[in-house]
């Protein structure tokens, strides 16, 4: 499967801005309901951006319901869900601890097995629990297209750190088996991740990482990223290409579109003007058909 070249992101909808708390707050006020988000998604869709790459927040379910209910308006709309919404779990761990959090978010019975059951069965149980957590996150997307399903960077990178690589392989396998979709991995450590995925036998993996001219959150550095992407042995989606606004848009896009081997760009914007303009610049730079 080849990826769509230009994807629409969701940070602007959910009060995330890596540079300014004020901007984040203003955005979260503007997008307090599904209708105001949908209006922007309409602008993106009509500008030719058919993929919404989004975190599995509860509210995304409302968006999915709207898409599902209007198949003639959105015949080509695709979601690339990114899971989990980590703050939900992190805040809960702070409040009630790891064990209670797992109980809170996983269907009953699983944790019981883990606690009381034979510890020799633990491998099986952990994987089973992870599968149930994936299913819980995917419930919101029943009935809409989700050809690529991502693991969020905090989880991908946690697994990379502790070298629990088999969990990445299991996620990849389960997404294919259960959802007939491809697994994607978001990371802040792109060169390391791609090597690991290759070693796991995952060919041409789908990965998403910060790719920007100033090297913001690109572990290994700009040159290493350039070399890795140019090898063309992974489908790479660039995010944070503007480095949260630290690079002027045109300069940022010219640099990132000039990278050899880059497959896609995901960006977020709130105004129709910005969306259309960014899409046009990328189309021109990549000479995509209009």
């Amino acid at each position, binding site marked *: 499967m080849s990826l769509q070249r230009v994807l629409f992101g969701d940070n602007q909808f959910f009060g995330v801005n890596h540079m300014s708390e004020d901007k984040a707050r203003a955005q979260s006020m503007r997008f307090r309901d599904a209708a105001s988000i949908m209006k922007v998604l309409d602008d993106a869709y009509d500008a030719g951006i058919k993929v919404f790459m989004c975190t599995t927040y509860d509210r995304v379910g409302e968006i999915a319901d709207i898409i599902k209910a209007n198949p003639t308006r959105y015949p080509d709309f695709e979601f690339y869900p990114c899971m989990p919404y980590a703050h939900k779990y992190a805040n809960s761990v702070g409040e009630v601890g790891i064990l209670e959090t797992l109980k809170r978010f996983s269907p009953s019975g699983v944790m019981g097995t883990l606690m009381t059951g034979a510890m020799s069965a633990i491998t099986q149980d952990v994987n089973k629990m992870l599968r149930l957590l994936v299913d819980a996150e995917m419930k919101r997307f029943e009935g809409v297209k989700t050809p690529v399903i991502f693991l969020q960077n905090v989880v991908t*990178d*946690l697994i990379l750190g502790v070298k629990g690589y088999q969990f990445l392989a299991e996620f990849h396998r389960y997404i294919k088996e259960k959802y007939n979709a491809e697994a994607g991995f978001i990371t802040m450590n792109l060169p390391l991740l791609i090597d690991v995925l290759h070693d796991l036998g995952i060919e041409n993996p789908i990965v998403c990482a910060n790719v920007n001219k100033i090297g913001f959150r690109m572990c290994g550095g700009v040159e290493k990223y350039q070399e890795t992407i140019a090898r063309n042995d992974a489908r790479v989606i660039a995010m944070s290409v503007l480095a949260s606004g630290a690079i002027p848009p045109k300069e940022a896009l010219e640099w990132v579109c000039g990278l050899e081997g880059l497959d896609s760009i995901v960006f977020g914007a709130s105004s129709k003007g910005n969306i259309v303009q960014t899409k046009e610049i990328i189309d021109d730079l990549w000479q995509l058909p209009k």
Partner: protein
Amino acid sequence: MVKVALIGAGKMGLSHFAIISAHPEVEVVGVCDSAAFLTSVISKQLGVKTFSDYKKMFKEASPDAVIISTPNSTHFEIAKNALELGIHVFLEKPLCLNPAEGKKLFEIASSKNLVNQVGYHNRFIGTFQEMKRLVQAGAIGDLYHMEGKAYGQVVIRPTKSAKTWRSKKSEGGGCLHDYACHVVDLMNFISDVPSKVRSAQLQSIFSADIEDAVFAQFEYKNGTTGYLEANWSDQSVRKMSTTITAYGTKGKIVTDRQELRLYLSPGNTFEGFDDGWTSKYITELQAPVNFYMRGEEYSAQLDHFIDGILGRDTSVETNFQTATATDEVIEQIAKLGKG
């Protein structure tokens, strides 16, 4: 290779585990936790040797260094044991619940020439480091007031019974030792340690045994004043957000994790800054790290710890002495705040 062991595999312990495992000059020789379901996953799935008794781990795994992320009330005993065995110690914050214990730990560490560090990760954030530099270089003239605020959503509903140590006062739970200590430490880092806590209030919003909010007023030498507000029951913020403001005779600086905003009053300039407002962002202020998991500061603080052990970096960003100064302020707030 530096042989590192970890004690505590909870929220912070797992984060440290991932970051330190990715360090190219570190070998993780053991993880100790009392929760069997965690150690079982770690040993079976990750192939790392696990222990339920840290003393046994010290003996069998003979680590060069240890990262301790256990409930606050256990910090002193575990750290003391490690130091006495000649093990370098990275300890989660706060250092101890009693400043006398922190002082003791610093004495032992110093006498044995061991690296000692506390997990005050905000000191490794580029925006706060730049703020410290500007304040201390006199960019805003004479400092007359410091303000530190932290909000987040940890306890957002009434707790019927204490679920973890974090909701038990006797084990060091509460907003004071979780959120407020970060703010105190950051204010100490950027300006100075207050000479006195003038007033303090601890407020329970949802919790039974602990405070969910902390308010305190500080006095510094030279008449500088300070104000602290910490609240972990604020659902309006997505994740913990900390803001420090410094007021000086020539301007002020407002800083959070993402952004530093400098205001210079009319006619004042400093280095390349003109009068009026100027913003500097984390994108230009943060040094890159080799492995990123959840913020550069978490990686940077552990890199600094390892660099200290390897003798490559002898600078002290935070140690048992600076953290004891923070504990002393916390103790005063606790005493006054009881009301």
